[in-house]
């Protein structure tokens, strides 16, 4: 796991509270259509609220949200975020939404209470997901939030559920099922 990059630094994109997954994160048609192909999803990430987002964001950029991000269990948008190399920092998100993000290998922190007061869109920010240390280089401030739980680190480092399963199959599963 040592080669996995747990520290992201980039531009801040700040969102408000109660951002629905279907509609605002990714168009609802991709959710109901169970579309999970990142190449298909990427051009539509935040399409409704920030057209062209995918052309401006860069790997390492961090999406900072208010309370109740995602508002449910769907994870199609997280596929696009993960493929773009983005990270996600939420004041709160439903547990099933958090689960969907982790399942898709996204570097994500929740319970970041007050983080929307610590940064603005465009700030140069950094997050260490293993320690929870958040740094706003623009404001020259740091703050500590709960890090990624130890039990879930391997899952993220392997790229989420698919990557974890492929790794499990190579190391354990094939022998077990032989």
């Amino acid at each position, binding site marked *: 796991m040592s080669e996995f990059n747990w520290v992201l630094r980039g531009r801040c994109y700040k969102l408000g509270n109660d951002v629905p997954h279907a509609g605002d994160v990714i168009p*609802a048609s991709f959710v*109901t259509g*169970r579309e*999970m192909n990142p190449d298909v999803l990427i051009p539509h990430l935040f399409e409704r609220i920030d057209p062209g987002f995918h052309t401006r964001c860069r790997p390492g950029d961090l999406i900072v949200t208010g309370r109740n991000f995602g508002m*449910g*269990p769907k*994870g199609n948008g997280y596929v696009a975020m993960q493929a773009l190399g983005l990270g996600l920092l939420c004041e709160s998100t*439903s*547990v*099933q939404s958090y*689960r*969907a993000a982790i*399942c898709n290998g996204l570097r994500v922190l929740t319970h970041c209470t007050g983080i929307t007061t610590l940064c603005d869109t465009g700030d140069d920010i950094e997050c260490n997901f293993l320690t929870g240390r958040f740094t706003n280089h623009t404001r020259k401030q740091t703050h500590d939030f709960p890090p990624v*739980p130890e*039990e*879930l680190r391997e*899952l993220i480092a392997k790229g989420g*559920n*698919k990557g*974890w*399963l*492929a790794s*499990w*199959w190579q190391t354990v*599963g*094939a022998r077990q*099922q032989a």
Partner: protein
Amino acid sequence: MGFTAIEKVLARTSGREHVQAGDIVYPDPDMVMIHDGLVREAKGELDAIGIKQVAAPKKVMMVSDHDVLYGSDRAAERGAFNRKAAAQWGIEAFYDAGRGGHGHIFPMEQGSVLPGMFYFDNDTHATNAGAVGAFGLRVGNEISRVLATGTTWVEVPKTVQLELNGKLPDGVQARDVGFYLARQVKFGKVSVDLDYRVLEYAGDLDQFGLGARVALCSTPTEMRAAGVFVPPSAAVLKYCNEHAKRAFTPVFSDTDATYEARFSFDLSAIAPQVSLPGNVGNAVDVGEATGTAIDHAFIGSCGSGMYEDLLCAASFLKGRRIASGVRLFIVPGSERSTRRIVEEGLMQIFLDAGAMLLPAGCGPCNDAVVGPVARGEVSLSTATNNNHGRFGPLDARLFLGSPATVAASALTGKITDPRTMPADAALRDRMESAYV
């Protein structure tokens, strides 16, 4: 130190002396359920890795409820794929289209989901298992990991207790309690967050039969509860004992268990509820919505697809005719209920009233694959939720009500207080004994 029911069930299945809320565990489930809508994705993911077998095929139940009628080529292809998948994985408990029915209903009716059980499910409404005192936990696409390895990670949820005191007035049903709960939370009358909590009911629960207990599980699920737990009554345990397909041990919370919050409702103060379009929490007393003309109605879904609900519908429809311009779909939760509809005389009542019977399953509630609304239409149904676009265009107006409210309203053509319409007493009385 006492433990909640979910903590006890997860301790047992995780091989631990005890667990508590917040722990991350890897339970060995009693069952794994996957529905027809996700088999292709799960199998495709495993096949791409080279995983051709599932870890415990005897534990897996595959159900066909989301798209039963195959109204498109795509659906027919999906059904064909699912049949091949079941054969390749060696799944004996494969319930094909037209077999079994709704995966969150028929397994309880036939004694496959039993008190004290824990299972993984790809679908959110696995919470229905709480109606018999069991737990089904949604893991979404991670069901592929469960299929391949037998388990996945689970954070032990906190539990919130809701005490129901008194007796529901005539004409008020268990679905109304759920809408009322969502309303109280949405408008800040009750300060409780159900996100990934288990909602455990307490209080005067003996008045609720199995069908009503299923209804009690519905709305908390839309409020993002991880589970709902209705401590099984003597009547529920008797039913389960008589139908059980396996041994089971009921589980109850300890009296000194740790709850995150406790609150109570006076059932006698609750009126029939109607959830206005957009969210289950937009509920109002039915009087505030009466008179709204409707085009579309259906009775069924995870929340109201039990035989009790069908008896309730029939008690209003008997000897009456649905209003002109309204289409009413009846969607039984199980093949067993469909059979009973015919054997016990309800089919004639529905036909005489002009209602349409759909095969057991999700009905319109799944993404409008059958019986959708048109643009600008108004629907009143017992669907699990009324989020915009749930079963049709975004500008259709989707109202929710209890089976009694939907049936009465389909007859008048406008939202109607069921307390103003006499129901057939003999059919209504049979509701109490629907599952004995």
